[in-house]
C-alpha cells in the first residue's frame, strides 16, 4: 500500500484521502495567510505605533491613536480628557447610512430575486446576466454617472421639471439620500444573488400546503417563505451592509461634509502628509471589532432560536 500512487487511492478511504488532500490544501492556507492573517496583523500592529510626520510610522509603541479616537484633551492636548464624540458620530452616521442602503437593497432585491427565481428555468440565467451587466463597469465611473444623473441640471431633475412635477431642481447631490442611493446602487447584486439562490431552492409545495391550511398570501410569505429563505436574506444583508459601512467612493462623490463616513475617514489617514497611519489603522480595528461582535451576537441568537 505504501508504494501506491496517490491517484489510485480511493478518495473515500480515510488515510489516503488525507494524504492527498493535505498538500492540496497548501494554496488555501497560503491564501488565508497572505491575504487575511498578515494584513490584519499588520493593521493591529500599526494601530499601536507612533505617527511619523510625512506619513508612515515610527516603530515605537503608543496608544495615541486610540486616545485620539475616544478622548478629547483640548486643542493643545493639555486639558483634562473628556469623551470625544466626533468619530463616534461618524460611526453612528455610517451605520445608519449602511442600514438604509441595506434596507433599500432588500426592498428592491427581494422582489427582483423572487421574480428571477420564478421564471422558467431556462430563462433565469439570462435575467441574472442582465442584473450583473452594469457591474462590469468600474465602480468609480458608475458612481460619477449617478452624480451626473441626479445633479441640479441632470436628466432626472430636467425630466421632473419638464413634466411640471417640480418648480425648481431637487437638491439631491451632497445629501444623505444621494449617499444611500449610491450605496444601494453599488451593492444591489450582493443582495440579489444570495436571495435568488435561496428562493430558487424554495419548494413552492410549502406555499400550496399553507394555502391549503387557510393561510393568505401575506401570511404565507411571513410564516413560511421568509423563515425558509432567511439564510439567503441574512447573507445578502451582510454582503451589502459590511462593505457599505466602510465605503468611501459613494460618500466622497455624492455626499458632502455632513455625510462624512468611516470609509472616508480611514481613507484620509493614508493620503499624503496630512494622514495618520496609526489612527487609520486604529479606526479600522475598531470598525472590524464592532462588525465581529455584531456577527457573533447574531450567530448566537440564531443558534439558540434553532435549538428551541
Amino acid at each position, binding site marked *: 500500500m505504501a508504494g501506491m500512487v496517490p491517484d489510485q487511492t480511493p478518495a473515500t478511504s480515510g488515510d489516503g484521502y488525507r494524504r492527498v488532500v493535505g498538500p492540496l490544501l497548501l494554496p488555501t492556507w497560503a491564501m488565508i495567510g497572505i491575504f487575511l492573517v498578515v494584513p490584519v496583523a499588520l493593521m493591529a500592529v500599526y494601530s499601536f505605533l507612533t505617527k511619523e510626520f510625512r506619513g508612515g510610522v515610527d516603530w515605537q509603541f503608543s496608544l495615541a491613536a486610540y486616545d485620539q479616537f475616544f478622548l478629547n484633551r483640548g486643542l493643545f492636548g493639555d486639558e483634562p480628557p473628556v469623551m470625544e464624540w466626533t468619530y463616534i458620530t461618524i460611526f453612528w452616521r455610517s451605520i445608519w447610512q449602511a442600514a438604509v442602503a441595506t434596507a433599500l437593497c432588500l426592498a428592491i432585491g427581494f422582489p427582483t430575486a423572487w421574480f428571477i427565481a420564478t421564471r422558467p428555468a431556462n430563462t433565469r440565467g439570462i435575467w441574472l446576466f442582465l442584473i450583473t451587466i452594469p457591474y462590469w463597469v468600474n465602480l468609480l465611473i458608475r458612481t460619477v454617472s449617478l452624480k451626473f444623473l441626479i445633479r441640479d441640471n441632470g436628466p432626472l431633475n430636467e425630466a421632473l421639471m419638464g413634466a411640471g412635477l417640480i418648480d425648481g431642481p431637487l437638491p439631491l447631490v451632497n445629501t444623505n439620500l444621494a449617499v444611500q442611493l449610491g450605496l444601494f446602487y453599488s451593492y444591489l447584486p450582493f443582495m440579489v444573488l444570495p436571495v435568488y439562490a435561496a428562493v430558487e431552492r424554495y*419548494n413552492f*409545495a*410549502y406555499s*400550496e*400546503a*399553507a*394555502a*391549503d*391550511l*387557510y*393561510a*393568505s398570501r401575506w*401570511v404565507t410569505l411571513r*410564516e*413560511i417563505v421568509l*423563515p*425558509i429563505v432567511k439564510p439567503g436574506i441574512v447573507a445578502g444583508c451582510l454582503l451589502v451592509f459590511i462593505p457599505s459601512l466602510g465605503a468611501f467612493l459613494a460618500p466622497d462623490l455624492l455626499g458632502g461634509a455632513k455625510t462624512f463616513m468611516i470609509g472616508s475617514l480611514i481613507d484620509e489617514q493614508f493620503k499624503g502628509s496630512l494622514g495618520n497611519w496609526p489612527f487609520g489603522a486604529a479606526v479600522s480595528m475598531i470598525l472590524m471589532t464592532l462588525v465581529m461582535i455584531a456577527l457573533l451576537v447574531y450567530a448566537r441568537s440564531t443558534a439558540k432560536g434553532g435549538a428551541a
Partner: protein
Amino acid sequence: MSDAIDIRRVVKRYGTFTALHGVSLTIRDNEFFTLLGPSGCGKTTLLRMIAGFEDVTQGEILLFGQNIAGLEPDHRPVNTVFQNYALFPHMSVLDNVAFGLKMKGMAAGPRRARAGKMLEMVHLSAFADRLPAQLSGGQQQRVALARALAPEPRVLLLDEPLSALDLKLRQAMRVELKQLQEDTGITFIFVTHDQEEALTMSDRIAVMSAGHVQQIGSARDIYEAPVNRFVADFIGETNLLEVEVASVQAGMARVVLPGGQQVTCPSATDTLGRHALSIRPERLSLIAAEGDMTATVERVVYLGTDLQLLMRLDGGADMQVRIQNSARTDVPQIGARLGLRIEEGAARLLAD
C-alpha cells in the same frame, strides 16, 4: 345523502397536452371515494383542481352545491395530504399540525392541545418537538395526515398517503384510516395506484386511465363486473380471450370458446361478433376429465398461499390458473394435459 363534490365534464389541458378528457364524478358526503389508476393517468391533477391549485380548463366543480371556480385554495373547506408531504421544514412537528388551526384563529392553548391529540392519534406524540427532517418517511406521512385532519375539513384529499410505508405499517394504516373516516364522517377522496388498497378501503372507486374515468362502482362491482379490458386487466389478474358471441340477450351472452365448447356468461355488451372474454384465474378449476377447455401446464409458480399455473390452451392462447396451496394439493406436473372448468360467474364478456 347529499353530494360533497360534483365534478362535471372537467377538462384539463397543459398547453397542447390534455391531462383530463371531460371527467364527470359525483362524490357523496361521508363517502370514502378512491381514484385508482396507473401513474400519469391524472389522479393528482384532479385532486389539485379540487383543492384549487390548478385552474379548470373546461367544465365545473361543485363543492356542496357551490361552484368553487373563483374560490382561492385558502377559502376552500378542503385539506390535502400531499404526495410529497410538504411539511414546513422550519417548524416542529407540533407546529406543523397546529398551523391550520392557527390560521383559523384558534387560541394558542386549545390549538396545542388539539394538535397534541392529533399526534396521539397517529402515534407520534413522542416526536412533537422534532423537525420534519428528523423523521422517517413514514412518520412524515403520518404528520402530514394529522396536519390535514386537525382543522376538521369537510373533505380530505389524500394523494397516495400510504405509499412510503412498509407493508405491515401500510396494512395497519389502512384499517386506521378507514376507521378514522367512519368516526369523523369526513368525506375522503383517496388517490392510489395500488388496487389492493383501493379494494379494501373504499366505498366506491373510480378507475381512471389516460385522463378518462373508465368505471365507477363499489369494489365488488369493479372486480366482478368490469366494463372493459382496461378495468378487467388493471383490477386483479385476468385472462382475456378473444371469443365469438353466438347470441346475447338481457345481459347474458352465449359465447364460443377457442376449443369449440359454448358457455353462457354475463355480458357488458349487447352486440354480436368478436369480443374479449375475461376469466379470473382463481375461478378456473382443474379437472382430470375434458372441461370447458383443455390446456397444457407450462410452468408452475410458487406464491406461498397459492400456486400459479401458466398454461397453454389447445387453440394456442395463454391461460393463467391460480389454485390454493393447501396440504392436499397435488402439484400438477409440467407438460400435463388437463381440463379447465369455468366456475359459475367466473367469466364476463367485455364491451371492448
